[in-house]
């Protein structure tokens, strides 16, 4: 038995999902899109970890610890536009790719998305302050809302952790669930977990 449902079917029925302009984003291209998104997230984490090593292991002063790319292009670390841009890319990725998730995986992905909505808002506020020269409630530098409660420079690393962890859980659950979804004709086809479905004989080999 082979099951290869067309992408167009993904936009109909109780599990209708947004599939992008190509009609494939959250179906046959979902796995590829998630991989690209994961590479961006991991690269960002790599930069943070390199910066952590520079500060806490190598003992570099904080302003000089620019991670890897930041050493070659220092404005990448100091630019508020850069931070905001990354927060925006993350938000767009989480919003657009969520349609490919179902069940528990979708709930974890949504948790990650809503955390990023707030994180994005915080960066927008920082950008607003940096671009106007007026700082929140008379502060002496751009300040985010939660910084008023937790004045730690690692705050945004904590935010990234809060966004990444549920995202990873969602991806794992999605991968496992896809094998079951493949047997449920009411759930649209998705390219994730293809090898699992192939082993189950639900997808044509090759």
């Amino acid at each position, binding site marked *: 038995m082979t099951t290869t449902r067309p992408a167009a079917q993904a936009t109909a029925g109780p599990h209708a999902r947004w599939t992008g302009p190509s009609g494939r984003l959250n179906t046959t291209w979902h796995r590829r899109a998630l991989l690209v998104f994961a590479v961006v997230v991991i690269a960002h984490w790599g930069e*943070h970890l390199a910066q952590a090593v520079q500060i806490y292991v190598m003992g570099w002063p*904080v302003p000089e*610890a620019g991670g890897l790319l930041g050493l070659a292009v220092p404005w990448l*670390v100091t630019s508020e536009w850069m931070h905001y841009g990354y927060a925006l890319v993350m938000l767009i990725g989480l919003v657009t790719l969520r349609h490919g998730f179902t069940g528990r995986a979708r709930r974890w992905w949504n948790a990650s998305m809503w955390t990023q909505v707030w994180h994005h808002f915080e960066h927008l506020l920082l950008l*607003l*302050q940096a671009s*106007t020269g007026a700082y929140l409630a008379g502060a002496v530098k*751009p300040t985010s*809302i939660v910084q008023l409660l937790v004045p730690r*420079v690692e705050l945004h690393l904590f935010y990234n952790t809060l966004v990444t962890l549920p995202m990873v859980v969602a991806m794992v659950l999605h991968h496992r669930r896809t094998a079951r979804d493949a047997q449920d004709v009411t759930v649209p086809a998705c390219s994730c977990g293809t090898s699992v479905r192939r082993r189950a004989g639900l997808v044509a080999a090759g």
Partner: protein
Amino acid sequence: MHHHHDTSLGWSLGAGWLHVLLVAAVLVLAASALARPFLGSPGRRSRAALTVVAAGAVVALLVLSDGVDGPRQLVALAVLVAVLPVLVAARQGTALARGARRAAPWVVAAASTVTVVEVARARLGAPGPVLEARLVDSALLAAVVGLSWLSLCRAPSWRVGRSRGVLAWALGCAVLIGTATATVTGTAI
């Protein structure tokens, strides 16, 4: 590990445009409050628009002010209370929306009380222009939050509807007076 948020962009748009947006936002809120007794409760779209405008006004006010009357942590609470109506207006029928609607009259009452107290303290002789500016900004902040939550209130009877219309007028006038005072004294607006 660290985001260097103490750095600037190397250029600045200046805060002038933010002042203009803030004045425009509070005028929209005041106008809707003053029109409420005649036009009735706002519809779904109007309510969503008003909550967004109020949230934007609160954020702009906090960025432009030198602080609020109280600990800095109040700023986080003010933003939370200003953003919540936006979510409620966007996601009607949820448990959050139902709970927020039940709490709305109490939030409006609290915000109105804070507005009256802060205006009175500013008018009856604040010790120094810095504190006076903070009191005026705090009054304006509370009035804007109150107007945002007022848009979520439903009037179960004619009498309640009338009393909320009067309250809307009072808050709308407070916003206008606060805006005028802030313009003269040179605080956030």
